[in-house]
C-alpha cells in the first residue's frame, strides 16, 4: 500500500516517488516509515510528526493513503 510522506531536509527520501508516495507493506507502522527515511535515533523523541494531521505514536499502524508530515520551521508573511 502507499502512504504519503513530507520529509525533512536531513532525511533520506530515496524511497519516495516524486509525489512523496512511499510503498509500505500492510500493517506497517510509523516506526517503519522512520526506518525507511533513516530518521536518526537521537532525533526520534524530539521530532514533531503527525499522521493525517493528528499527533501519533511510532506504533501507529498505517492505512492506505495516510499522510505523514513533520513539523519544520517556516518563515513567511
Amino acid at each position, binding site marked *: 500500500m502507499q502512504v504519503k510522506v513530507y520529509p525533512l531536509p536531513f532525511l533520506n527520501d530515496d524511497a519516495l516517488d516524486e509525489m512523496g508516495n512511499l510503498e509500505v507493506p500492510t500493517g506497517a507502522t510509523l516506526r517503519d516509515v522512520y526506518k525507511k527515511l533513516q530518521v536518526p535515533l537521537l532525533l526520534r523523541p524530539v521530532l514533531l510528526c503527525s499522521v493525517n*494531521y*493528528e499527533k501519533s505514536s511510532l506504533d501507529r499502524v498505517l492505512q492506505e493513503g495516510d499522510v505523514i508530515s513533520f513539523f519544520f520551521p517556516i518563515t513567511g508573511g
Partner: protein
Amino acid sequence: MKGYMGKILFVNLTTGDIEERLIPDHIYEMLLSGVGLGAYVLYNEIPAGADPLGPENVLGIVSGLLTGTGSFMTGRWMVVCKSPLTGGWGDANCGGTLAPAIKQCGYDGIFFTGISEKPVYLLVNNKGPQLKDASHVWGKDATESEEILISENTAKKKPAAAVIGTAGEKVSLIAGICNDGGRLAARSGVGAVMGSKRLKGIVLVGSKPIKCHDPQAVKLISQAYANKIRKLNLPGIVKGSLLPVGGKVMGSMKHVAPIDGMMFATLMKKWGTPLSNGMAVTNGDTPIKNWAGSSKDYNRSYYSRINSDLVIKREYRKYHCYSCIVGCGGVCDISDIGQGRFTHTHKPEYETCAVFGPLLMNRNLESIFYINELLNRGGMDSISAGSAIAFAMECYEKGLLTLEDTGGLDLNWGNAEAVIKLVEMMIAREGLGDLLADGVKIAAQKLGSGSDKYAIHAGGQEPGMHDSRFDPMMGVHYSVDPTPGRHTIGAAQYYNMTRLWEKVSWAPPVKIYPKNEEYEATDREALKSVAGSCYKQIVDGIGGCLFAQIMGVQHWQAFEWLNAATGWNKTPDEYMLIGKRMQTLRQLFNVKHGVEPKSFKMHPRMAGEPPLKEGPLKGRQVPIEAMMKLHWKHFGWDENTGAPLPETIQQLELDQLLQEG
C-alpha cells in the same frame, strides 16, 4: 451563475457620470476576475504615457471570482491602477470584509477615472450608486473616516468601506487604501492615485446573492479543507523563544525539502505572521540594517526583544478575514504606549515588525506597535515607509544627511524615538518626511550625492522583508514581476510548499535537493519561477490568500473550486495558461507605457553585491540577470528585453482579446 457577477461599475469623477458595463463571459474564461479583469479594463482604458496621478489613470477596486461562493480563503480585494511609484502596472491586495461587499452590490469591480473637483466618496446601496460629498472627512485619518462614513450610511445592514488616510490625500507615493480599521491594500502607491482623484473612499451596502454553478460541490471541497485545518494545532511545548533556534537550524541546512504547507497553518493559527519575527532573523530571511547587516548585528539581544510571544502577549482578540478558517489576524492593546493616544491596533504583521525592527536595528517592540497604528491610520505602506527610513539612516551615517537636514532628529540606527517622529513627519509630509514620503528612489534622486547606493528598491518599489540572498527565486520575482519588489509573488519556499507538480504537467517536481541549486541560473529553476508566477495570477484572479496558496494545491484546491463554481471543467494546465495570459497582459501594460522590464532589476545589494561578510548569508550571491533572462525565456517573452514575443501573444489569444477591447 458562475461565481462572478458579470458587470463592473465605471465612475468618471470629472463629469460625475456613472455607468454599468457588462463584461462578456469569455473575458472571465480567459482572464478570471480580480487582477485579470482589472488588467483587461486598464490595458484598454488608460492611454499610453498617461500620468499616473492625472485624470486618465484608472483606479479599480476588484473582488475575486471565488469570493462569496462558499470556498475558503478567497476573500481578498484588490486594487489596480497605473502605479505612480513604478510608472507601470500597479496592484495591491488586502483581506478583511470588503471583497464580498463589492459583489453583493452586483459588481466584480468598481473603476474610477477622472478627477473630482472636491473630495467625494462613492456610496453603492440597493438604490444604486451615487457620489457624495466627503469634505467632512477629508483631512481625517483612515480609521476615523471609515467609522464616520459607515455610521452615516448604516440602515439595516452595516456597510463595508475602504478609504484613504491623510497620506493618500497628500499624494504620498507610498500611500495605500484602508479597510476594517487599518488594514491596508498597501503597495504600488494605490492610495496616492485615489488621493489624486480626490476620492476619499467607497461605501458598499449591497445584498445581491453571489451564485455559482454547483454550490454543493464547492461546499464539499471546503469541508474537506476545513476538516484538516481544524485538527491542526501546535503542541504547547513549542514556544516563541524556540522559533529562532529553529531558524538557526534551518539557516544552516545544506538541503531543502518540500515540506507540508499545512504545517504553516499551525504557526499562523498561534502567532499570525509575527511567527517569523526572530526565526527569520536567524535563518537569514530578514534583511537587516538596510540590507547591509546580518544576524551578527541584529543578534539575540535584539531579536529576543521582538519575539513572537511578546507580540501576542498584547493580543486580546483574534479575528479571521472573510471566508478564512485560519484566523491569523488579531487586535492588540496599546493603551499603555504613547501616553494612551491609541487604545488598540491590529496585530502588526511580520513585514511591519521586520522593517521597523531589524532593518532599522530597532529592538523597541512598543515603538513598532505604535508606528503600526500611525501608519494604519495615516494610510501608508509600512514596507516602503520603513525602507525609506532605513535609507535615511544610512545616508545619515554616511554624512549625506545632517542634523540640519533632519530637523534635529538623531537618525542613528535603532533610535526608536526618532523613527516615530519621522513616521509622523512622512504622513504629514513635513521636513525630511516630505522627501521620504515618495519612497527611496525619488528620495535618492532629490538628495543626489550618490545616495542611490543606499536606496534599496526594485523598479522604484521597496522590496518586502524577505532576503533574496536567502531565497534567490524571491529576488527573481522582485525583478521580473510587472509590479516589482513584491514578496507575495513567488519564491522557492512558496513553490516547494505549493506543490504545483502534483497537478500541473509541466511544473518541475521537487524532492530533497541541495540548497546551492537555488543559486544557479538553470532552466529548471526558471520553470519553477514561471509556474509560481502563473499560479499567483490565478490566486489574484479568484481573491485567494497567499497563506492558503502555500498550504499546497493538494489541500487548498483552487482548480477544483474553480470548476465547481464555474462549470468550466478545465484542467489545471488550462488554468495555468490563464495565469500565463494574465501575467503577460500585465507585462504588455508595462510595455505599452514605455517601461523597460530590465529596469526592474533589484538593487545590487539584494543580489549580494557586495557579498555579506558574516551571518547565515555570508558570501551568498545571486546571478540575477541570468535568472531574469531564463525566466523571461520560459515565459515566452524576449529573453533580452522582457517584452512578450508576438508568438506568445498570439498563442495566448491576447491579440484577439485586446482588439475587442
